[in-house]
């Protein structure tokens, strides 16, 4: 319950404050969102598996976002930003799919 409330509070904060994202960070926003979603689905699945761990969740969230950002940054510097972004999205996408499938099995037994 509290996590959902916290999530909603964050959304409301984002809508109310309406911060302007610095132009330098704009390219990393989509990849950060995908990385964060991966951490969230991992956390939800762990919760349903009954092995959720706060510390693990926090660390995976922060490291996911940071590593994804760093990889894209490095790719941009090396001139392969687009390809590396694709790689990150593929890996994270596969993980999200796998975790969502596990969540689905938990919820619907199917």
């Amino acid at each position, binding site marked *: 319950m509290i996590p959902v409330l*916290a999530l909603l509070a964050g959304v409301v904060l984002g809508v109310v404050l309406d911060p302007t994202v610095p132009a330098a960070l704009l390219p990393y926003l989509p990849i950060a969102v995908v990385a964060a979603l991966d951490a969230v689905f991992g956390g939800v699945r762990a919760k349903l598996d009954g092995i959720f761990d706060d*510390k693990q969740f926090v660390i995976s969230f922060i490291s996911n976002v940071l590593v994804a950002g760093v990889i894209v940054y490095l790719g941009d510097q090396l001139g392969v930003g687009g390809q590396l972004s694709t790689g990150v999205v593929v890996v994270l996408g596969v993980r999200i799919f796998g975790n969502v499938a596990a969540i689905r099995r938990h919820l619907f037994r199917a």
Partner: protein
Amino acid sequence: MSTGRGPERTYAPDFLTELFQNPLDPGYSDAAASRRAGRRPTGWRRSTIRVVTVITLAALGFLLAIAYRQTIEGEPGRAQARAGLVTQIKQRESEADQLTRRADELREDVNRQRDAALSGSDAARLRDLEAATGLGRVKGDGVVVRVADGPSEADAVTGVGGTNLGKVLDRDLQDIANALWSAGAEAVSINGQRLTATSTIRAAGGAILVDFRPVTGPYEVSAIGPGQLERRFRDSAAANLLRQVAAEHGMSFGVRGADDLTLPAASEPQLRYAVPSVSPSPSPSGAARSNSPASPGAGSSLSPSGGGR
């Protein structure tokens, strides 16, 4: 993560297999194992980590919200920029058209004034020269070559599709114009754009530019020339090639003889580097401005007989 360092060492499956089989962070099961072993955080550590989790989730919500807003806000911005550019292009085009019309009017005016100022033979000679160089309107019998793009296989909405082999290229128009010249044409125009000695036919992006002005299909190349012009053009290599392309790829290609064609005048070429080797007329800065072309070879630029005005 916890591959045993013991005597029976297990090798983790390769990365992709691991990724597909077990998408969950191994840290969760490690943490659960250590909890089962009885090592669970207690007291303030436990509550701190809870608070951090809540803060992380709030940060996540924040991230989602601003990412959503960025995406939503970016879209109209792009559309607006595009619409703005389109209107600018339209506006500049109409401005250019207006200026061209004005230039044509002024040219007519200049011609009239000049005819009035010149004696009959000089004016006639000048008119002949203008007609030959493409600077004067001409009329006569000739041919009209009409080419148009074949049906495109590309999707009309997405623009995705194979290359259209029946599309008219700048090369095709160049070939037609050259074939017409070599068949004896004395004046050629493409979609009402008269060709001169300095005319260019080239492609920029998907558009064909004649003298840096875009022309769109169907393309009509009109030429005035001798009576055999049509037959000679039909026999030319360019016509054969285009007939073949038309038969195979659906480009439309037609040649017809036409009587009483009128070809417009080309706009005045701007010579920036080339200067006449014999100075035919006095410099404009001269005190007495003479309008009559000096006789060829005349060294003096000031002809006293010129009608100064």
